[in-house]
């Protein structure tokens, strides 16, 4: 019995550690590099970055969306020497970590790839990688994610890198 409990505890520990592994890797790698801004926000503080013009409807919707989320992490830089290498490396890390590609946007300025990871039909993490001519950003949103609500969340938050998530609105049924 003790062994079973020990195994269960070990497995649950692994599950916790497994979450956000890709973004954590980049946050640790560039921890001391001031050209990268690193942000970790608990869902309780999402409202600090929200832009709501006093509309009660928006406020209610915002709290409905964020109530099941746990948090968000962002690492971004406006000027990296080799953004293409960084972007390709992140895309490869995301694929290796078992994420499923949801959407890709490519234009002359930027490449964006949005991927998700689910467990038992529930999306637990959404990760977005963006690479531009000089820019790079990696965003992870984790918790219980409703894709239909993510684009609305992105539109309500004053975080530049989230603007690409607004495109999800048309990509999800």
């Amino acid at each position, binding site marked *: 019995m003790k062994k079973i409990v020990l195994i269960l505890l070990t497995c649950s520990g692994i599950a916790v550690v497994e979450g956000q592994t890709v973004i954590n890797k980049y946050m640790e790698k560039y921890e001391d590099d001031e050209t990268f801004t690193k*942000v970790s926000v*608990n869902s309780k503080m999402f*409202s*600090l970055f929200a832009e709501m013009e006093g509309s009660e409807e928006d406020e209610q919707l915002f709290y409905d969306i964020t109530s099941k989320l746990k948090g968000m992490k962002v690492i971004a830089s406006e000027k990296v020497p080799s953004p293409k290498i960084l972007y390709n490396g992140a895309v490869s890390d995301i694929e290796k970590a078992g994420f499923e590609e949801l959407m890709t946007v490519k234009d002359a300025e930027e490449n964006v790839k949005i991927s998700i990871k689910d467990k038992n039909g529930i999306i637990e993490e959404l990760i977005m990688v963006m690479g531009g001519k000089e820019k790079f950003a990696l965003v992870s949103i984790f918790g219980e994610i409703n894709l239909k609500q993510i684009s609305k969340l992105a539109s309500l938050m004053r975080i530049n890198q989230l603007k690409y998530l607004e495109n999800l609105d048309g990509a999800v049924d």
Partner: protein
Amino acid sequence: MNKPFLFTLLLLSALSDFAQESIIKEFSEPRRSTRWLNPICLYPSTLRMINISGDANYNELVSDIEKILIYRLDSITIMSEDYDSWIETYENVGFEEYINLYGKQTMKILGKGEEYVGLLKVEEKLLTFYLKGEIAFHKIPNLIQSFRKGNLLNVLTEQLR
């Protein structure tokens, strides 16, 4: 509930609050840059008093705040790499990390119930703060705008100079 028990409960609650505020005080007090000025300490009455333009949104924002304490720390502390060492002490008493932003700027906010502590480092300025009460965080950007527009008496001028 009998009176001695109720009294003990209230006393313990008060002591607990004091202890949690004292962690940031003990760290910041000997390190504050403006020794000739006291740290900024705002209570409901002073929070309302600085609203010289009578901004209703501001009054609503601060209506549930019981106390704000702000320290500006000295340059020696800024240069040291342990200006956030006190955060671990708060984590040990159950405070949860709400925001951790680092890079060119640093912002950390931790919270537990109706108490918040944090630090803000922008360029050569380093502030630590303690807040007791509730605040609508999404309205803070508007509050900053109010400070910039001069709608509020700028009590931070000397500390942020």
